[in-house]
């Protein structure tokens, strides 16, 4: 488990999950095939740009930009984060996961909304200039 601190956890935003400049809180909860684990990158091991580039250029996935929450903010609502260094399809040593596995649906919804709210004040971490999208 990543110890509580102000370390940031970067989260990529799929452009389909933005409607008219508004990001859905779904961005901050795991999908049906994620096994209750939300994929993020650690700021102590990479930058927001580095996380974006590995996600899009190396893994070939889509992102409109990078948002973030701190380890403390996730911990404050009962969510632990832990390292999950990946080697496949590409080496990704900064990869980490936020653990939603023990949560019921209602708690998942609440946590996602709380994380989205926590991400708002920091705004877009990458690219710069930021995408013309509210959070």
């Amino acid at each position, binding site marked *: 488990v990543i110890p509580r601190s102000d370390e940031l956890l970067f989260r990529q935003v*799929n452009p*389909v*999950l933005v*409607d*008219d400049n*508004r990001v*859905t*809180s*779904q961005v901050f909860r795991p*999908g*049906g*095939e994620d096994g209750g684990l939300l994929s993020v990158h650690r700021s102590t091991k990479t930058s927001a740009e580095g996380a974006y580039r590995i996600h899009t250029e190396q893994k070939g*996935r*889509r992102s409109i930009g990078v948002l973030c929450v701190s380890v403390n903010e996730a911990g404050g609502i009962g969510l632990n984060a832990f390292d999950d260094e990946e080697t496949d399809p590409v080496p990704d040593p900064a990869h980490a996961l936020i653990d939603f596995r023990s949560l019921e*649906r*209602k708690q998942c*919804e*609440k946590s996602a*909304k*709380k994380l*989205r*709210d926590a991400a708002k004040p920091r705004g877009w971490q990458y690219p710069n200039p930021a995408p013309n999208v509210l959070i």
Partner: protein
Amino acid sequence: MLTRPGCLSIKSPLMAPSERIFVSPVLKGARFETNAVPVEVLPELASYRDIVIELARWIYKSDHPGRRRVPKGFDQRFSLRLREVLPGSAVPQLLREPASDAGLLFFESDEFDRARDTFNTCIEQIRDGNKMPEAFTPRVVSLVSRLGLRLLSSESIEFSPPDGTPAPRFDHGVRQRIAELANSTYLDEVTIAGFVEAVDKKEGKEHFRLHSEEYGDIELPLSVIDEKAVFAALQHSSAARVTVPAIALLSADGKIQSVIETGSPEIDDDIADVRDRVEELRKLDDGWFDGRGKSLDRSAVEWLEQLSSVFEAGHVPRPYLYPTEAGGARAEWTTRGWEVSIEYSPSDKTNYVHALHIETDKELEEDITLDRVAAFLHTLTG
């Protein structure tokens, strides 16, 4: 027997074999809590009798379109007697006595029984905000206007039929609504919201036609509004919606007879945006979420279209729309500190609603149909 000054309490356990209970008016309010009826309220029962007779006449004439009059002695077939007051607020029992020539037919349902039920149906329709019922002819309305005159604003009567069918409440609010409906026309401030359909030239004057969900097609003269804004709306897109504040002459059923004065129209871009978003989501291919993420199920598209209609009718704020990985759809709102989401799942056809107040952590969850979303949002925002 007088139980306290001004209150008549009638207790008679015996009912003659030839009588039957016609109606049990349930009087509610502080004055009736002693299960007694103040004598000044008794004329209400006579007013009710007059209404039943008039409605029965209307029913008879409706059943016999060739006859202009009811048969001789028709009204005399209906005679009511007050026999006792039951507890439960105050519930006087009104018994119907047979006419001298009624015989066994008296125990069969007739126009007067139907009139009792018709009255309740009409009151229910008026309470639900509908237009004046057909059975409430001007003559009936004039009789109804006398009913409830002796009730205080906190009091009501429910005319319960003997079969126990729940009866609607008759109170000052209903009286007021009937009075409003009875006025043939009235001036009121209205907001006409609708889609700009065309600009016509009629008798040398230009009008623009608005298709309004609430009022139907309305023509407004270009001369009384901001002409540039109207043309801008027409050029915007086929989905451009305009909201026009106005003072209009309305008929008793709430239809606009004529528009007296209008303010500047506001162009509502959100409608077009929401429609465009539904179209965008409808076209999503499988794999939209980094190789996974199903295209939207047809039922999810229909759900989005239905929600879009609810929004266009002005019942909910502008929804933000998203797909779900499972081929479903989701709408979100941020309103007055609440983060609200509703998610449609095509596999089990559920609509999961979750609301979180960010500051207080108050949470609500439900499974509701789209037609109840508006009420749910109103509950949150007061």
